[in-house]
């Protein structure tokens, strides 16, 4: 018996070593150790070049939380996130309702709508920059339409640049959420819709009583992705405006990279990173709790 048990135990440990350990080891090197180091650096006046720095306690956190640039970046990111939520859910739902026909043309349109979701942020942002630069397609077209008074420097004035970055960040999201909502719509059993139509329910009534309640999982998927994507966003600003003009389109994620790598303020950058991570963990926990309650 004891022999049997010890063989089992050895087997169990070996199984874990082969199946579990490689994944855990790489996860530790790439995520857990860096995360622990990030917390450590955030408490130091850390210098990346010498890999050293004196302990300064919570000074970095105080500096971040009293830095007006951090708050303005967080404010801009919040507006961007709210726009993403609205644009992806409203625009995506409307387009999905429009495209919800199993016909070849509509399937083709769905494919086109999804293309921006697989393009790199660098590519998206550069395509839009050729449209939005001072002598770009948009100002040209406005001129041709006799709307020259609407021409502006879309990337060069703070308010227009903020609007541009927000609008462009929403562009791939709308196609993405269209496809998610379409999948939701097409998973609704057609008998339900047919029964509603036989009972004489109009399209509005059917939507409110059947379609919308059954689209809640799609709403949840799209909203989670938009909130988390919005809070971490950086690539459109990085390529299109570099965070400018005058920091107007700066996001916390972009500031972390700049403070850390360009300005060698690693302690400050890591404090900012830990604050950003806390915000995302908080949002995830709230989202998870809501979805767990729903499933009950």
């Amino acid at each position, binding site marked *: 018996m004891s022999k049997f048990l010890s063989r089992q135990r050895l087997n169990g440990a070996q199984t874990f070593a082969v199946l579990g350990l*490689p994944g855990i080891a790489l996860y530790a090197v790439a995520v857990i150790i860096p*995360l622990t180091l990030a917390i450590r650096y955030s408490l130091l006046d850390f210098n990346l070049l010498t890999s050293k720095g004196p302990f300064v306690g919570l000074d970095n956190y105080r500096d971040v939380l009293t830095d007006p640039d951090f708050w303005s970046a967080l404010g801009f990111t919040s507006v961007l996130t709210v726009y993403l939520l609205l644009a992806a859910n409203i625009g995506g739902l409307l387009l999905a309702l429009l495209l919800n026909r199993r016909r070849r043309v509509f399937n083709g349109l769905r494919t086109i709508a999804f293309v921006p979701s697989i393009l790199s942020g*660098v590519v998206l942002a550069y395509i839009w920059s050729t449209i939005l630069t001072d002598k770009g397609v948009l100002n040209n077209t406005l001129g041709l339409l006799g709307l020259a008074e609407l021409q502006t420097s879309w990337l060069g004035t703070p308010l227009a640049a903020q609007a541009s970055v927000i609008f462009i960040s929403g562009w791939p999201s709308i196609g993405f959420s269209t496809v998610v909502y379409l999948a939701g719509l097409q998973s609704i059993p057609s008998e339900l819709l047919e029964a509603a139509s036989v009972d004489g329910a109009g399209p509005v009534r059917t939507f409110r009583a059947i379609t919308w309640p059954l689209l809640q999982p799609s709403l949840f998927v799209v909203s989670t992705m938009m909130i988390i994507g919005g809070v971490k966003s950086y690539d459109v600003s990085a390529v299109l405006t570099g965070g400018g003009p005058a920091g107007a389109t700066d996001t916390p994620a972009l500031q*972390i990279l700049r403070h850390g790598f360009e300005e060698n303020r690693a302690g400050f950058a890591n404090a900012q990173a830990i604050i950003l991570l806390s915000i995302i963990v908080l949002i995830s926990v709230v989202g998870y709790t809501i979805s767990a309650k729903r499933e009950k």
Partner: protein
Amino acid sequence: MTHRYDPDHASPMRYIVAIAAIAAYALPLYLAIINTFKTNEQIIADPGGAPAPFTMGNVINVLTNPESDIPPTLLRTSLITLTVVTLVVLLGAMLGYYVARHDSAATRVLMLTLLLGLAVPAQVLLIPLTQTFRGLGIMGTYAALIISDVGFFVPFSVLIFSRFVRSIPKELDESASIDGAGPLRSFFLIIFPLTRPAAASVAIFVSVWVWNDFVNPLILLGPATGTTIMAGLYRTLGQYTSDFGTTFAYMFVASVPLLILFLALQRSFISGLTSGSTKG
């Protein structure tokens, strides 16, 4: 008069509105494609017009210019993506299987730790990663990029695979073990082949992310090592501001591999990328 209920009936009006809406939505894509095949003079004079004359000059120029080094970069990016995807799928499937079949306090703590990893943005890890990799002496090597990408996506992969393995009846493992197969054999011979849909989702999500990423390669590979295609594109954007044709062609060449894969595997692409809603 009887109406036959047909949920897929589409009126001509719906066709017109749908086509117009997607045409408006896809206008930037149209601009990017047509300008790839136009001369610089025409791009500046008439950015919205169809190519006249049609030219492959920009694409040929980008592919043959030794300075931009694009064909080797495409090959390098494919190899890096393939390596990362293979490791993420394999390690995630093994760990996911282990977690799904060994429910204990320890595996639950492990799952929680992995869930934390789902929420961590890549930027939070980059500064300390450079220090870790410098310490290991691999900063600036492909190993650094591959290790960080694989480790970053292990949690996502484990989550997808563990969910999938739980839907496979345990009796399957048990009957294999009665036949004398150990846990490793029953995983590799019986379970892993069944997890294809999960593997496809993970592989597609991770390929798109790794192919399109430009920040990790810029920082972890540094300037000395040959870079990936999007990091290369990001670097060139500043240099050729006046040479629009070349830039459009660069973007075209950098995006086409994923686009072809997408058109060939549309269904798996969509389910794979939407499964990413769990990756924070």
